[in-house]
């Protein structure tokens, strides 16, 4: 039985698709059977980030409407053989999604995989609420910036109200993933600090992903950052986050701290 994880945020452009790809690839590389579902109907991106855009035949809407079987729509990753992608439709919109259809797809994937990661669209409307509806766990992607934090808080409220688990009186396990973290800017007060974000959201931290050029490079290459550049700051942070998602205890590394330590050792001051 798979664990269903929704990667959501409320705010757009904070790193949900990047995170779904990176975490999915990291989990699959450790031997887990992982299925990624793109719920952003009409504005699909997960297929691009995964480098699968030229192999899309059927999509989530086709499966929901019974036009295609799930096995026909799932695209197997060429690099990791335990990683599959169910892309969204580009020509339709979220109104084509039905709760029953989504329930069937997730139920079927639960049987055959270890992890089902749902890449939520931005916002709080149908696409986002359906992406979170059947989740056991939520990764709430947040930039350390006031609008993103407030939108994440809104999403946390929805996770406690509009999911199947919440309706049954249970809780969705929620984790914050801080992305695009820039330690220098936080120190200058230009960005919220990690403590600020956690104080406002009062939800456990899954990981801190540093702002970096590698993420953009990876998505333009059509590869999750954990595959294209595993030694980079973001990749290492995502790999740690994937381990924490599996339940391991991994000490939290604050990106940028290492650099400052070296600077201190050599008597230099950070910019």
């Amino acid at each position, binding site marked *: 039985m798979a664990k269903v994880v929704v990667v959501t945020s409320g705010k757009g452009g904070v790193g949900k698709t990047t995170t779904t790809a990176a975490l999915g690839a990291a989990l699959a590389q450790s031997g887990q059977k992982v299925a990624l579902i793109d719920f952003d109907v009409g504005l699909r991106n997960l297929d691009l980030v995964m480098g699968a855009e030229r192999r899309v035949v059927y999509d989530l809407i086709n499966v929901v409407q019974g036009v295609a079987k799930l096995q026909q729509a799932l695209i197997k990753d060429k690099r990791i053989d335990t990683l599959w992608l169910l892309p969204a439709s580009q020509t339709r919109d979220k109104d084509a999604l039905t709760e029953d259809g989504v329930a069937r797809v997730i139920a079927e994937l639960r049987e055959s995989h270890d992890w089902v990661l749902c890449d939520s669209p931005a916002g*709080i409307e149908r696409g986002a609420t359906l992406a979170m509806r059947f989740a056991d766990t939520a990764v709430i992607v947040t930039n350390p910036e006031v609008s993103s934090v*407030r*939108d994440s*808080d*809104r999403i*946390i*409220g*929805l996770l*406690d109200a509009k999911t199947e688990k919440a309706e049954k009186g249970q809780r969705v396990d929620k984790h914050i993933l801080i992305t695009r973290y820039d330690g220098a800017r936080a120190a200058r007060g230009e960005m919220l600090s990690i403590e600020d974000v956690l*104080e*406002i959201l*009062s939800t456990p931290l899954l990981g801190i992903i540093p702002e970096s050029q590698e993420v953009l490079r990876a998505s333009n290459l059509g590869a999750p950052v954990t595959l294209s550049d595993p030694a980079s700051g973001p990749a290492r942070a995502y790999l740690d986050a994937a381990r924490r998602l599996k339940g391991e205890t991994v000490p939290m590394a604050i990106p940028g701290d290492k650099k400052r330590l070296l600077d201190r050792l050599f008597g230099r001051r950070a910019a």
Partner: protein
Amino acid sequence: MTSTSAAQARPSLGFRGRSFMAYSLTPQPPIADWLAELDKWARNSPGFFVGRPIVLDLAAVTLSQGAIAHLIAELSLRAIRIIGIEGAVPADLGADLPPLLKNGRAAGMDDVSGAKPAAQQQEPSSLLLEEPVRSGQSVIFPHGDVTVVGQVASGAEVVAGGSIHIYGALRGRALAGSMGNSRARIFCSKNEAELLAIDGYYQTTEDIDSKLRNRPIQAWLEGDVLMVAASD
């Protein structure tokens, strides 16, 4: 001649004060329409009045002695037995009418609004929340105080008929005394409020003294001015 000693020798009459609860019916003018409404209720709840002690409260109507007698006759046709009358003066009541009652008080009784008299639930007078109130959530509790053990996020609101107590940061809106209670207060451990209001009188972040930001505060009404002061 006093006869106290003589009274002790006789058997007691058993004449003493007792209090009972009765229902009271208050007819509203015009009486004909009110009787029609009564008939409608009786159709939904047949036999409701049978066996119940009913007092007729005439405070809302002005009826002559004859009209009162006629009304009581109309009610007894509907199996409603009047045991007493309130809201009238002795001059209006003849000897054959039920006696005048004074000093009636409201009393909690079985629910009378439905066909099935249900046991009255004790209305909760305060609400306790142990989870933070998330952005976009709206907590509305007109019956009394609201206590939040946790923070109230930016973009969230708490609306209470009574006072609001927040053991955490208030980053959203708090509206106390929402049902017209000007004595309600707002307390929070860390003031970052977007709006504070008591009985409709409000202040937004801009109006509140910036020196009070991030401090524990108390807000109350003095007349029609919302006062906010630090409580540390």
